[in-house]
């Protein structure tokens, strides 16, 4: 799976949690998940669990701390997929 496919899948997973549709319309790898997309921080765990299911990977607690932007999420998933 290449970066573009991962990016598209990540955005699709994030979509139901996004409170700022304008930011979603122009989403890039630099888009901040909490600050720009306004995803509720309390719901970030649901997002990450969906990443696990969708990509069949396992994400450690510490890994989540480094996920701030959509690009961070893509990079994390890519690293887990090997």
């Amino acid at each position, binding site marked *: 799976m290449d970066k573009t496919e991962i990016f598209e899948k990540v955005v699709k997973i994030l979509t139901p949690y996004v409170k700022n549709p304008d930011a979603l319309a122009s989403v890039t790898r630099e888009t901040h998940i*909490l600050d720009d997309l306004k995803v*509720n*921080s*309390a719901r970030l*765990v649901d997002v*990450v*669990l969906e990443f*696990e299911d969708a990509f069949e990977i*396992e*994400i*450690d*607690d*510490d*890994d*989540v*701390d*480094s*996920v*701030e932007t959509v690009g961070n999420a893509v990079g994390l998933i890519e690293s887990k997929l090997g």
Partner: protein
Amino acid sequence: MTAAAISPVSSEARRALKIQREVTRLLSPLAFTLVALVLRYAYRYRVQGMAELRAAYRQVCEEHDGPRLICANHLTMIDSFIIAWALGSPWWYLRNFRTLPWNVPEASIFAATPLLRGLIYVLKCLPIRRGGDRREVAGVLSKLAYLISNGETALIFPEAGRSRSGRVDVAAAGTGVGRVYKAVPNCRVICVYLRGEGQETYSGVPRRGERFRGSVSVVEPKTDHTGIRGSRDIAQQILARLAEMERSYFDARQ
């Protein structure tokens, strides 16, 4: 059970925590007495069955003199102070200092001014910015894990915020409590359910003259999951117990 998934606390942070602990030991009897007086006489709060509640907490502490994690339902911004007051008297905390729980209040509210920062410093608080930088949040969780590993008690709300529906929401489980629990071997989880008669939903502070009732229960979460899924699973088990306690609360009220 997964291995600990929490970053180690730096030696600098450990020193700072030791200093805070000693300052707190000296000043908390006065500070906590003031808090208790404010709750009792300014807000006119009452806790029905306070003696039984305190006895239940005392018994759990006597049975387990190791790491303790208090997990409670969350309806107002001052819950942690009300819970600490409900579970022990200033005199008892003075003699059993480690049972006075550390708290993680919201920094934007409780650390907004130097006066507030000073007050919460001596009340065993580590301010946290919920929804802030994830690494900062993780750093505070690491400090909590370090403290309870060293025999202290901490209070965490397993829902990631106040109960928006006014009821314990198992689906709202965060992962913080699970991360701390996994990082501390032999940790005892003490569930505390406390609610006022007039608390229909979440709010800033309970109404003046509120009458609370509560219960204490020990839970031993176990999970076969690893990583973040394991942390979530642990938090949900704790919240499931709090939801049971909530049902008992309302059954008793009818």
